[in-house]
């Protein structure tokens, strides 16, 4: 599974891990280097993976990593929990920086970055085969997340990938896939609704526990 789900190392609900992240951010704002170290341990693989997916190059991904965590360190005060989780903030910063780099170098990323070069010290998670960590994580929340992923239809997943990773406009996606523009938009909205419902379920589960 992912670093997100194994974030706390004890297989706890990601809902709780996300709440802990907010506390980490307030410690970062007070220049707590240990908090930075914890945040890095939790999310460096995710940030690196996303940057690699968008840039298609391990060296560029490392550069994006550096920029993302530097920005987080310097601008922790800008994080507002009302605008989403720390994870979503990290994703947004990473995507923006990675797309900036791609545009600056006028290099299109490989559409399928799964074939990562050897020196990237890892491979993106196979969508069918859970990583070894998944086997040590017990709990309903993990099952719930996997269900949400499998609930996305192939066209829904494709529309999200083309918009989010490849920075294509909805019109470009429509042209590429041969679907009407309205259908592309509906696929994206439906997919996000499914993902949101999973997050809400996770958070509800955590609230019931505490």
């Amino acid at each position, binding site marked *: 599974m992912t670093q997100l789900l194994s974030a706390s190392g004890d297989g706890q609900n990601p809902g709780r891990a996300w709440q802990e992240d907010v506390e980490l951010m307030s410690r970062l704002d007070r220049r707590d280097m240990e908090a930075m170290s914890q945040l890095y341990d939790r999310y460096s693989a995710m940030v690196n993976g996303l940057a690699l997916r968008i840039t298609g190059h391990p060296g560029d991904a490392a550069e994006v990593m550096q920029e993302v965590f530097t920005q987080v360190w*310097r601008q922790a005060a800008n994080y507002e929990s009302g605008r989403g989780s720390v994870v*979503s903030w990290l*994703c947004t910063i990473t995507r923006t920086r990675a797309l900036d780099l791609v545009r600056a170098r006028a290099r299109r990323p490989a559409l399928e970055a799964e074939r990562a070069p050897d020196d990237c010290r890892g491979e993106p998670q196979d969508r069918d085969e859970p990583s070894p960590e998944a086997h040590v994580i017990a709990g309903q929340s993990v099952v719930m997340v996997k269900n949400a992923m499998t609930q996305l239809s192939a066209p829904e997943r494709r529309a999200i990938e083309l918009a989010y990773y490849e920075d294509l406009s*909805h019109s470009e996606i429509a042209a590429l896939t041969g679907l009407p523009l*309205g259908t592309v*938009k509906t696929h994206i909205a439906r997919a996000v609704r499914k993902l949101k419902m999973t997050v809400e379920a996770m958070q509800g589960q955590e609230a019931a526990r505490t």
Partner: protein
Amino acid sequence: MNDQDPKSTGLEFEQTSAEALAAWYAVGGLSPEEREEIDARLRSGDPTLAAELAKASDGVALLIAQEWAVPPAPDLKERLMEALLKAEPVGRQKDETWPAVASGATEAGAFMDADADLKALSRYFEQAHQRFPFPPESDRAARKAVLVIDMLHDYVDEHAPMEAPLARAIVPALQELLELERERGTPIFYINDSHPDDDRDFDVWPKHAVRGTAGARVIPQLAPRVQDYQVERVSYSAFFETGLEGMLERMGVTDLVLTGQAADACVLGTAIDALMRGFRVEVPERCVAGLTEEGKIFALRRIGMLKPYQPKKRR
């Protein structure tokens, strides 16, 4: 959310649910016009849309976290932590060679012609450029970035500790410029004065722009967007003890547009440093404010007569 496909020509935003708008905004792929429409609603304080956007962003983040986990090179963490420690300005000792009082505005007055005004300034630029024209070069190959300097509460608000009253007058023009440049995809850098609470800078200036306080934040009319960059700095130039130069280099930036305040202090300091580093510098007169109007004219004259040292090549 309406599960029926919207019209194939696109969307009527007014008729679309906040949930769907938030989903598209979080995933990306909207046209600049659609995005601006949503930005405008968020700026106007639409609580439903803001809440939906938070939820949609979390949903997308879940997908990313689920699918993308590639551990970085093991030594990267150590290098990053070292860099962060160096980037930390807290505890920096003030350079005793800095003058205790900024003299720019006073000097500006001394250098001014009695009849100097902005029309004269325009004529001055024209003459200077006629005398020393730039070699012909394609503007299309320029990679531009906009710097917004110190449009912070502690400078812009009435009765603020470092109040620069003229700064309030440039806000509408600056909003217009930022809107246009964002549509063009130009990177925007907010260069924000930021001091530790016990900075010795406060021996010579009123206490201002203390990191983490409301006074150190950009005024809401010019609030940075999520894609913008924010750079904290401690002295007059945006290049002094910041990572700005490296970021601009990596992005291939060749030209800088300087905006904000004060034209005769931090804008001037930043402009000189930028020119020394080979950036072409443009200072739109409507988008900068001086400590005084004369100071601004003085500063723009100084900047206008200089050319970049070994100008960066436009690709």
